[in-house]
């Protein structure tokens, strides 16, 4: 169930091109039908620091971070040492490094297989401007039996903007790498079907948003969400739409609300600090019933925290960060490919329910790239509701569903003023208890009475033990369930995609056969655990497995902990 995998780390100084090397290797692997994940790790320097391409070639698309590495290519040891905590080696690991450089004790003590090669000299011998990263690409390609022609073609495509001589040097270096015979045995995972996609979660989210009808984006740069916005800037230009770079997140969310008020499906993306700034106005979207989608790529917090690394610690603010009673939608994509579906679904729900949707992605799925089967799409594009044509228009009319018809500026004779002040059905400000009570109930009813269908969670397996997670931890949890299965512990996994409104009845139903429920999440404060406890009465014993970032959740540790608790 876990499947065979092969993990490769390539480390070097920033600018040497280890990330490009990793990307091209994974793309060539994908062309053959291979599956795999590329995590990109950088030091804190803006340029010239260390970087690492962390590859995991797999037999399925349950992408978790590698727990140890089968092969490490260290272009130099200084830069490798900065990733010592993240790149674990063992006696079975292979290491390719520059000949003549002393091995650090931390590496030699582990006694891996060492292949010292004259990397710089081989690159130089390929071409006067030979590139070490491309030489390594050739070496690794040969080890994995990847066609040299495919590697060269992909490199030519990637370097299309560079000078001819530069591309020639790259190709010559790849060819020379491919020609080397290395005494290294790698156990290659099996290939699957071809016809796959290669993308990051942030790109997937951008595509999902545009396909769902988003035509206005307001953007304020923040790590690790900027690349969603950058990708959408280009996309909107082609599809037809506008992107505004705002002066801050306060402006970004309000511009989004303004455009949405104009009837144009609107979106912004941010990360924790930006979400905190946007919270007041997300409440305005809720109160004025203006549909907006806020895509939040989580990073380590609180405060500036760990901007370049992943954590699932914005759940609390996404659920509870708005002042007053402000029911809204909170969703979380389960993996890179699911960023297309879940983002599209969030846009659709926000439009349909005329409210704010907060989507909780994170740095791990946002900035990693992966080979995936063609992603599932949200079948329902964002729809503006038809409006009634009567002259006495009630924008916030009380209805059975809680959903009122919506007019946009330009619509004839439906004029109203949207308001963050409490209001009556017409939209006129009102401080009366009866209006307040009715409008609070309306905004709650429309979310609670809506039929969300089967997509609120991904439920798999069965057993008396359940692992409940949300968003990106679902992959590690699924892998942990596989490990538990191997130990004879039948496990059900529930990966929540819709966090608010919580589908408590449906969740209780899928947990009905279970006796022990483990809530697994990547944060320190047990945020999901406390939320579930607050929302539901559990007949089962509820346990928390909460591990702060930025280290990725480890399936082996999850399985071990669960087994130990069950045995106690």
């Amino acid at each position, binding site marked *: 169930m876990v499947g065979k995998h092969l993990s490769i780390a390539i480390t070097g100084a920033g600018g040497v091109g280890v990330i490009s090397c990793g990307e091209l290797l994974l793309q060539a692997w994908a062309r053959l039908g291979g599956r795999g994940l590329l995590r990109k790790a950088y030091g804190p320097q803006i340029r010239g620091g260390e970087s690492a391409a962390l590859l995991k070639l797999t037999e399925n698309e349950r992408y978790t971070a590698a727990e140890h590495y089968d092969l490490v290519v260290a272009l130099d040891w200084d830069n490798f040492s900065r990733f010592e905590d993240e790149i674990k080696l063992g006696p079975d690991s292979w290491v390719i490094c520059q000949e003549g450089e002393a091995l650090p004790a931390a590496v030699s003590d582990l006694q891996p297989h060492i292949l010292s090669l004259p990397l710089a000299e081989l690159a130089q011998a390929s071409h006067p401007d030979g590139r070490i990263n491309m030489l390594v690409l050739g070496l690794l390609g040969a080890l994995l039996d990847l066609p040299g022609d495919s590697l060269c073609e992909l490199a030519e495509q990637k370097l299309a903007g560079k000078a001819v001589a530069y591309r020639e040097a790259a190709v010559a270096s790849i060819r020379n790498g491919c020609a080397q015979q290395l005494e290294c045995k790698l156990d290659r995972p099996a290939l699957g079907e071809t*016809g796959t996609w290669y993308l990051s979660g942030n790109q997937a989210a951008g595509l999902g948003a545009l396909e769902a009808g988003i035509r206005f984006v307001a953007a304020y740069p923040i790590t690790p969400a900027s690349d969603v916005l950058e990708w959408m800037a280009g996309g909107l230009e082609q599809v037809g739409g506008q992107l505004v770079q705002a002066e801050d997140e306060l402006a970004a969310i309000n511009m989004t609300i*303004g455009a949405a008020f104009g009837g144009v499906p609107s979106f912004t993306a941010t990360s924790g600090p930006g979400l905190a700034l946007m919270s007041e106005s997300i409440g305005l979207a809720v109160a004025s019933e203006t549909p907006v989608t806020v895509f939040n790529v989580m990073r380590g917090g609180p405060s500036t925290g760990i901007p370049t690394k992943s954590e699932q610690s914005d759940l609390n603010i996404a659920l509870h960060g708005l002042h007053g009673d402000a029911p809204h939608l909170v969703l979380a994509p389960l993996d890179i490919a699911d960023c297309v579906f879940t983002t599209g679904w969030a846009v659709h729900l926000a439009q349909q329910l005329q409210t704010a949707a907060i989507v909780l992605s994170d740095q791990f799925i946002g900035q990693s790239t992966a080979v995936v089967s063609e992603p599932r799409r949200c079948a329902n594009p964002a729809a503006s509701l038809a409006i009634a044509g009567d002259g006495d228009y009630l924008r916030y009319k009380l209805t059975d569903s809680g959903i009122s018809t919506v007019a946009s500026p330009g619509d004839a004779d439906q004029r109203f003023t949207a308001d963050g002040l409490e209001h009556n059905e017409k939209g006129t*400000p009102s401080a009366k208890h009866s209006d307040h009570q009715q409008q609070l109930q309306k905004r709650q009813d429309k979310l609670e009475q809506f039929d969300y269908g089967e997509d609120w969670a991904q439920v798999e397996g069965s057993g008396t033990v359940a692992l409940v997670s949300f968003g990106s931890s679902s992959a590690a949890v699924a892998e942990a369930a596989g490990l538990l299965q191997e130990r004879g512990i039948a496990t059900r996994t529930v990966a929540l995609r819709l966090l608010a409104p919580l589908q408590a009845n449906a969740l209780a139903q899928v947990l009905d056969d279970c006796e022990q429920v483990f809530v697994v999440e990547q944060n320190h404060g047990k945020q999901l655990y406390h939320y579930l406890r607050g929302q539901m009465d559990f007949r089962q014993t509820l346990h928390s497995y909460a591990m702060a970032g930025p280290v990725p959740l480890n399936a082996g540790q999850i399985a071990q902990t669960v087994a130990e608790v069950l045995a106690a």
Partner: protein
Amino acid sequence: MSEMIKLKAKDYKSTVKPIWCPGCGHFSVFNAITKAMAALAISKDDTVMISGIGCSSRLPAYVDSYGFHGVHGRGLAIAQGLKVARPDLTVLAMGGDGDGFSIGGNHFIHACRRNVNLTYIAMDNEVYGMTKGQASPTTPMDWDHSKLTPHGPGVRPFKPAALALASGAPWIARGYSGNPNQMAKLIAEAIAFPGFSFLHVMSQCITFCPEQTDWKSIVHEREEPTLSDADEAAKLFLHEDGFQTGVLYAEQRATWPPEPEAAASVAALDQLAASFRV
């Protein structure tokens, strides 16, 4: 549509009753807005009033057009988002001195430099009225009527016109609540101007600043022609008394966003998706 008949100013008023105190300058701004709308024969359905929070920000609900009463300080952001997404609409943003120059100050300067084609009316009474009389960014240094700053704010007030000019606003005018006819003309001109038009209105608050009734003897119409040279305007705005009314500065400058360079099409979505295929 009802707009086929020539509408009068009063036809642009909604049925919602203003909450303002008797004698408030904002009544005059409200009347001037509806007069300007009537003069321009503006379509109610295609016009949007957008505001933040404060006494003056209540205005959108009083106009029979579309409107959005947002949160404190962010009216200009809502207005720009709307106008960029819906360039076919006539968009007016409005609010007070606290809303526009304090909590919304960052949006004000960036709206000036972005130059989206909309009109911003700042109703400046040099005081936070809705919270019962605290000093604002335009309150005189020695104004000691607030319990919050009993010795006066003690800091120099902003010069909104100078701030707008330094931030790149291409059209700057000043009106006075005591002269609604001039203000109606200024508003009509502001709406017609192709770009970000900033109308600074001295709008008296006789409840918390009764001394502002003296403004009528201080305010004076500018007799010289409108400036188009930024150097001259800078000198004027830094040294004037702040009570000169009229269109003070105007220049022609490209608005944002520009027309798209290439034709866009929804069919491009398929190409975007295809770009991810291995």
